[in-house]
């Protein structure tokens, strides 16, 4: 256990097989029972501290704002082990998130949770939010996105007559051939849009609040706020859906200033949608 001004961090081995490793951040001033805890999932293969320590910066800021947090390594990622169970990937992710919620409930008393995930972490947050009833909200960082006609027009028309764009295109082709096939990268695949849309609609009907954040780092797939409505339709204008587009930033927020903007944005979204109510008991 380590104490910092305003919160305490505790490290745990947790889960149904004691196979997961996580670090809980617990504010000194507890919320009442209706408050939410925030669970941050792995981004790709990066362990629980997140790309460039993003998850540490984020959870500590949220602790200062009064939210209990858990940054956790899911099965086989980071420092966590696997289990001997015979589960599909979706079942395993949901079971791991349920384990994480149990731990944070025991430590903080909160019974509802917001999941945060970047890239594959957003995909895992989506999977867990489909089945876990205690999930009250999700922050999708560069989550699912789909190319649309609008995307293609915005992407290719301005580039067609620019030499720099052709050069970048060719460099990326070469880069993918030279580096990506042989290296352990952090890529993932998207499920079909109709499937994802149906699952998001179900989440909204259950009252979940959803925050979609896109970065300029996925500009090969997302290039304008308008695109979100192009592929998700009416979901995009639902009152419990929020969208941000950090066009300048890269996919993993490598610059400290970009990380700070993201952390503040998630903090503000949480405070707006899940305001902290201090416990009446001292």
């Amino acid at each position: 256990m380590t104490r910092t001004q305003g919160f305490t961090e505790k490290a745990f081995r947790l889960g149904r097989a004691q196979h997961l490793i996580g670090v809980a951040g617990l504010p000194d001033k507890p919320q009442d029972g209706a408050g939410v805890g925030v669970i941050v999932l792995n981004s790709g293969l990066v362990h629980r501290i997140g790309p460039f320590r993003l998850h540490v910066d984020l959870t500590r800021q949220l602790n200062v704002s009064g939210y209990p947090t858990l940054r956790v390594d899911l099965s086989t990622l980071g420092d966590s082990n696997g289990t001997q169970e015979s589960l599909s990937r979706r079942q395993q992710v949901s079971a791991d998130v349920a384990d994480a919620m149990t731990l944070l409930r025991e430590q903080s008393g909160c019974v509802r949770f917001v999941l945060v995930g970047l890239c594959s972490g957003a995909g895992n947050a989506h999977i867990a939010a489909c089945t876990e009833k205690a999930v009250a909200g999700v922050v999708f960082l560069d989550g699912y996105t789909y190319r649309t006609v609008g995307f293609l027009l915005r992407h290719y028309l301005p580039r067609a007559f620019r030499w720099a764009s052709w050069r970048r295109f060719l460099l990326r082709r070469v880069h993918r051939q030279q580096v990506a096939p042989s290296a352990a990268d952090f890529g993932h695949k998207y499920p079909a849009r109709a499937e994802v849309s149906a699952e998001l609609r179900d989440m909204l009907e259950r009252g979940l609040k959803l925050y979609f954040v896109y970065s300029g780092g996925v500009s090969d797939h997302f290039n304008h706020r308008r695109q979100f409505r192009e592929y998700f339709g009416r979901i995009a204008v639902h009152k419990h859906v929020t969208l941000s587009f950090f066009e300048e930033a890269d996919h993993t927020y490598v610059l400290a200033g970009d990380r700070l903007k993201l952390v503040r944005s998630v903090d503000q979204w949480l405070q707006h949608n899940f305001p902290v109510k201090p416990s009446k008991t001292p």
Partner: protein
Amino acid sequence: MSEQPVPAIPGYFGVDNQLFGLFHGVTGPAQTAVLLCPPFGQDLIRSHRVYRQLAEALANRGIPSLRFDYFGSGDSSGNSIEVDWLRCQADAQAAAAELRRRSGCHRLVGFGGRLGGSLVLICAAAAEFSELIVWDPVVHGAAYVAQLDALQDQLRLDSMRFSQPRSSLDAAGQWLGFPVSARLHQQVSMVRIASTSVPTLILDSTPQDTPNEFAPLQAGGARVTSLAPTTVWNDLDRLEHAVLSPGLIRAVLSQLGAAA
């Protein structure tokens, strides 16, 4: 020798419990334990998996180890901007004391990659390491700092990463994703390691065309073993690729075979 694996135990230690660590224990008695000092910044994240694999391989051979994060890094207390070279040395010594306490072993081997290797070399006497195994240690800090500064400047212009080039201001005071204080910048640039006070094995996985910086250490008795495949540490194209090195684990186990 193969031991029953014991789950690694996460926890905090050091002054005010500010340091995070994972102790990889063993079931039977052990004579030697290994302190695994991580690299800094993005090197720490890239090599996290290989450090875990190494710790688990050591435990399977009956050798306990401790992985930990310096103040301001990983899961330890402190902001990234607060990483300080002298504090890191104190943290390594605190981690050595913690490992001795947990493992019951007085004989410690210090292991470190990149700047973690430099730290192990510098702390050898203070931490009372009996032996060192260092992986591509930084022995010439000024050159290393110049390389990181240049990469940081290239990073902001990297069209693979950013849609539009970023300003010098946006990228100032950072090394490949991590804020760096002027003090740390100066401290690392002053690192110069030309000798070692205890038996030392240098595992060299740098590309063959890299100038041999380890000659002074070799002249002082350190052994150098080349590792294949080579590790590309400073390449923006691989900035977020995990470093995997089965050869490293084999070499460390081989070196510690007699000790175990």
